């Protein structure tokens, strides 16, 4: 999995981000300020930088100017929600701009988008006997192709990206249908039923009461 460098002065936020990234299987290191950031970023060890804007000493925007040449994608983490700040952050060459406070899954989803854009993530996801190729849009079970509708495929990919993580119906709606989709969560349930039937996931894809669904890894697979 990819390695991520967190540059964040608040120890608890850094710890939180680290725990979130660890859950998704990323390796990560923490820097409390920007002093060594350029050297560390240039070392080639990291696939992505998470950069806080309000840092002691040099702030995130100033740091970004120096980090641009390292070729490592940067996502800003910031408490400022001013549109102008966002624009100036993105203009400096950042890939994304995440406003605090954020939920764990939101952070992961946006990190994945950036990493995928930089081809730092493999296009092939596996779960047990299942293989999903996100580039070819193909799913195979024990080598046999399975026919899925595009929405079913997207939903499967989202679940396979978050194995052992409970995702809510709303998050699935957003991930598959987009942020502005005003659909009903029942749509999600229907697609989940289809996935369970077509891919024999009635055991692995469990319903979490009052929350949503979780694709659980199985020992022995």
């Amino acid at each position: 999995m990819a390695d991520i460098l967190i540059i964040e002065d608040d120890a608890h936020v850094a710890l939180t981000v680290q725990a979130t990234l660890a859950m998704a299987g990323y390796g990560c290191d923490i820097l409390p300020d920007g002093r060594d950031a350029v050297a560390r970023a240039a070392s080639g060890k990291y696939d992505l930088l998470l950069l806080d804007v309000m840092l002691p000493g040099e702030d995130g925007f100033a740091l970004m100017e120096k980090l641009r040449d390292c070729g490592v994608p940067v996502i800003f983490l910031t408490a400022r929600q001013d549109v102008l700040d966002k624009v100036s952050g993105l203009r400096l060459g950042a890939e994304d701009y995440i406003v605090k406070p954020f939920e764990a899954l939101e952070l992961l989803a946006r990190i994945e988008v950036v990493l995928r854009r930089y081809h730092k993530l493999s296009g092939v996801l596996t779960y047990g006997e299942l293989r999903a190729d996100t580039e070819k849009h193909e799913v195979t079970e024990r080598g046999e192709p399975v026919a899925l509708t595009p929405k079913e495929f997207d939903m499967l990919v989202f679940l396979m990206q978050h194995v052992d993580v409970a995702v809510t119906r709303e998050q699935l709606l957003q991930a598959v249908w987009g942020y502005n989709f005003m659909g009903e969560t029942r749509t999600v349930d229907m697609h989940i039923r289809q996935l369970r039937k077509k891919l024999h996931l009635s055991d692995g894809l469990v319903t979490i009461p009052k929350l949503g669904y979780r694709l659980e890894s199985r020992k022995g697979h």
Partner: protein
Amino acid sequence: MKLYTWQRLFLGVLAFCLAAGGVAAVLLVQSAFSASLAREESLAVSLHAEAVRSGASPSDGDGFFGGSRLYGEDDSFLKPLPAELSPDGEALSAFVSEVTRAEGCLVRVEPAGSARLLLVGSPVTRGGQLYAFLSVRDITPLYENRHSLSVRALTALLLGSFAVAAAAGAVCALLLRPLSGVNRALRKSASGPLELHLPERGGQELRTLTVSVNAMAQATAEQTRLLQETADSRKRFADSMAHEMKTPLTSILCMADLLRIKRSVTESERLEYAGVIVEEAKRMRALSSKLLTLASADGTSPDFRECLLSELLEEVRAALQPILDRRSLRLTLAGEDTAVSVDRQLFQTLLINLIDNAAKASADGQQILLYHTVQDGNLLLAVIDEGIGMTETEVRRATEAFWMADKSRSRKEGGAGLGLTLCSEIVKLHDAAMTITSEPGKGTTVQLTVPLRRKAPVREKKEG
């Protein structure tokens, strides 16, 4: 009509000159003409009388006027009237019949072609026959004279009026020229930054105007600067506040989300995540209580009461005793006692904050001195510690909201970076002044100057 003042003045003067001059010219020309006419008439009448007396007898030779005799001009009598001086036949016969009916002498002006004739007639009886005895004078030059005089007068009037009006307009434009400079400068400053200083020139009114405009521009610029400063500090406060609120929220939200969505959480993970949540929630609690105190200090009018300083200080010491004991710090109160008029609650909050700050800066076992004295109707209060001190830059930033000298350490002690901001608000409410002097490694002194009586006419202000 959108006209410049000089244009208005020009038109006004022109109209006035034309009207007044016109009336005067008409009256003048008319009176000159009337005088000449009267002269001419009296001359004609006397000549006529002479002719009648001399017994010039009407000849019936030419039969032109039914027996009357005509006397031409050039004062030569007994000459028939030249053809070009013959009046219109109808008017003449009407005049003749009028004359024959009249008792005395009749005078009349009659047009004859382009000429004017002065007719003088009187009835005469010759040989039992009634005749109209007429004499005629050519007074055309009189009329020609009047005409040419009128033309000359009109020309002179027009030229003169224009000249006077133009002069008035020019003088006006010249006098008001500084106004266009004022106008230009104002227009420029309306679209750009208000930096305006007009040169003072022109008449007294214009000078007064420029002085007023300059004063206004200066006041506006000052206001704008103040507003900008307020807006800047609001923005800084909002930015810092967003940061201070959202940082703990981030940890809380993200950690709680992890606890919710992870399939399995180990015991150590649970302790770690929940620990972060609890600590950050406490941080938010400290921040919100400070913010509330700040908001109430900002919004309400303080309740000033007379009280004894020594009582107040003992309560402060009692409130701080647990913290002081834990760090084995000594708080020494010294100085003369006095009655002071303050908002008890707020003033205690102020002192507790200052001593708490001193405690945070001190090492365990050090001394904090609170010295108080009365000077020039003011209570002087100094909180002196022997702690780590601050650099000059740090002193300048100390009252800024959310600023902390040592972030990680203050946070651990429940600091939100609002203590001194609150203090300076309370100081302002008491019309007091607060100065901070500090030296790194030597300690910090915070001095308060509080007026003893409310509504004192002298408002002491000392800048730190």
